[in-house]
């Protein structure tokens, strides 16, 4: 499943930035800030690729950080979960520091538990139960999550 991060202003279709066939094959796609809707072809700006837009966007605390908002096909770590989303923890990476893992375990952040990601910059902040934990992004990258459980709902599915 890919994360649908753009809504077409013309037809309302929600799509991933790479979804349009033309964009996928375009040689200048890497640095291009334009995207096309796969349904109607309408071309719009992808604010997430603009550094200035990202800087401006950071002024609004409830908006998720753009560079963490785009879940690629292999994006299954806590660091890639968009801010504001809840997610179920899958596992820790093999090279995850043992002492940090023991701490997280003591706080209750263990596989199969639900956490809500609040922000990613300057550090990742997660909420579990009635507790907020700040952890370095490198640690967040070592926590694998079930990608299909990423949800914007206030309560995780039972």
């Amino acid at each position, binding site marked *: 499943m890919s994360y649908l991060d753009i809504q077409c202003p013309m037809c309302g279709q929600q799509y991933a930035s790479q979804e349009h066939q033309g964009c996928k094959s375009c040689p200048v796609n890497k640095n291009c800030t334009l995207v096309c809707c796969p349904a109607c072809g309408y071309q719009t700006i992808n604010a997430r690729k603009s550094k200035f837009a990202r800087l401006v966007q*950071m002024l609004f605390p409830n908006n998720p950080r753009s560079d963490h908002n785009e879940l690629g096909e292999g994006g299954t770590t806590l660091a890639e979960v968009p801010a504001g989303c809840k997610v179920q923890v899958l596992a820790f990476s093999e090279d995850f520091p043992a002492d940090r893992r023991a701490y997280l375990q003591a706080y209750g952040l263990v596989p199969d538990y639900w956490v809500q990601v609040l922000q990613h910059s300057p550090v990742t902040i997660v909420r579990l139960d009635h507790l907020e934990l700040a952890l370095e992004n490198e640690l967040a990258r070592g926590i694998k999550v079930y990608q299909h459980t990423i949800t914007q709902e206030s309560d995780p599915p039972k």
Partner: protein
Amino acid sequence: MSLQYNPAIPVKTEDREGSIALVGHPNVGKSVLFQKLTGQRVIVSNYPGTTVELARGSLRSIPDTILVDTPGVITFPPQSEDEQVTGRVLLNEPLKAILQVGDAKNLRRTLTLTVQLAEMGVPLILALNMMDEAQSRGVTLKHALLAETLSIPVIPTTATRGRGLQELINALEECCPSQFRLIYPAEIETAVDQFCTQFADKHLKNTPITPRSLALLWLSGDPVTEKWMREQVEGGTFQDLVTLRHTVQLSFVDPLAQVIQGVRLDYVDRIVSLVLQESGLGWRGKSTLLSGLTTHPIWGWVILGGVLYALYWFVGVFGAGFLVGLLEENLFGQIINPWVEGLVMRFVSLPFLADLLVGEYGLWTLGMTYALALILPIVTTFFLAFGILEDSGYLPRLAALSNRLFHRLGLNGKAVLPMVLGLGCVTMATLTTRVLETRRERLLVILLLSLAIPCSAQLGVIMGMLAGVSLTAVLIWSAVLGVVMLTIGWLAARLVPGERTQLLVELPPLRWPVLSNVVVKTAARIEWYLKEVVPIFLLGAVFLFLLDRTGILERIIRVGEPLVTGWLGLPPEASAAFLVGFMRRDFGATGFFVMQSQGLLTPTQIVVAMVTITLFIPCVASVMMIAKERNWKTAMGMVLMVIPLAFFVGGLLSRLLTLIGWG
């Protein structure tokens, strides 16, 4: 995995030997409860790591019973030095009971520690604290069912408001040893049995906890237990235990500590599903929004700027400017000092003694006036502001916000806690470095504290002096200190061996500070501070007086001239300020303050003097604390590194400012 439980007969607490240990996660209200139960005041704040040492007090309600307040522990095995203090209490202290303080709204986390403590076999009482916060978030607990399931007394409390304390005292008066026991995977159970058989009736009489619990700590790789066992058993037996642990580990992919904790968590999850009800009110309100803003990558720095400006205004302008002016010039300068001088002149006929009391370097005119008229208003305003910051829960958020900066210094954001505390008192901050997890991090932070963090008294004097010159002077001073701190920190991080640990910190809820707590805490700190400052200032005054009388001061000034006048470009009298700076940096800074008020310093000289005295060695008490926390070699190494560096940087700055024609 199942639970075994055999009820035991309750025994009156006062009939048993030993003390009661107050144990729990950081920042759950242990120290507040300690105060309520003993009547003794300890420093209480809204950030983890306030208690880094043990506090002991007699329980008011149970005769001959000592309550021991321990540093917060997240889990066993403990990771940081302060957590290990708690581990040592549980292993070494004769305990009649453990009183666990837990956060009611975070039941899952609380019970994970409860299970570990219950397994120790010591009578255990669980105080589910902060019930008011739990209720406001829609958390309801079936505490009677929880008590029945765990077979320990469970008392809901709100310690700050005194709720549930009588029930807690009743439970403490009569409680029985915990018989709680979880069953672990067969390989672990076999190893635990082997451990217990080997040590039954032999070596484990000196600890209050059960051999089974000790075995589990051993298998989990607890460093405190490992050290304790090394002292208790012979080399060969110790090696057998190491082999036993390695053998069991071969049966599991995950580390043993994790496997053991996994069993506990499974059990806790089952209990939580039985006893916890949530209405779904959850996290709402302005405090949640503000909490997000304080750690926001842009607004967080804006808020920090506002906090620093408020701190500067309150301490620098109001404290060091207005209050010091009021006390030094008006109260002491016009009323108290002339009256004391008159009194001395009338009753003391010996000129030597009169000079010692009210002369240029007199006990009253220098020692007491510096301590009471200059330092007291500054530390009072700083500690008030700091108390508000502590109780609001802002400091852990600052750790998250500043993590990237400390990353460059080979540290993580948690280092900001002792650094900010160092702005109050470097000695206290050195002790607080225990909250950091590795020896390397503690060493790096102590170095930066000794080098570039001025204490509140010094900061106030410096701010007062530099503000009198210009804003540019303040900026130059800040920039030079910043560059020195970053350069030395960056270099030290590369030279000191070891890995940096990644940030993992709990963010407590933002709360309105309780006025009474802030005021009482400030009073306690002022008392502590004055007890340390006044004797040193008086000693410094006598020291200077004697040097002056014997003519040594003049010789020192002459000898120091090439350095002080030649290299730093300061007047020869500055040598005296540096000399007392060896006792306390703020004493030295105050010497410059007086020189400035006498018109002896130019703006360039003021900036150079302030940079040099800030980078100068911290006070005698701090050096002794560094020696206590680390060792004398480290303390002396830092002193020998910091003094030449301070003069080197001061001299360079003097030349640079002269070159560009500033001031």
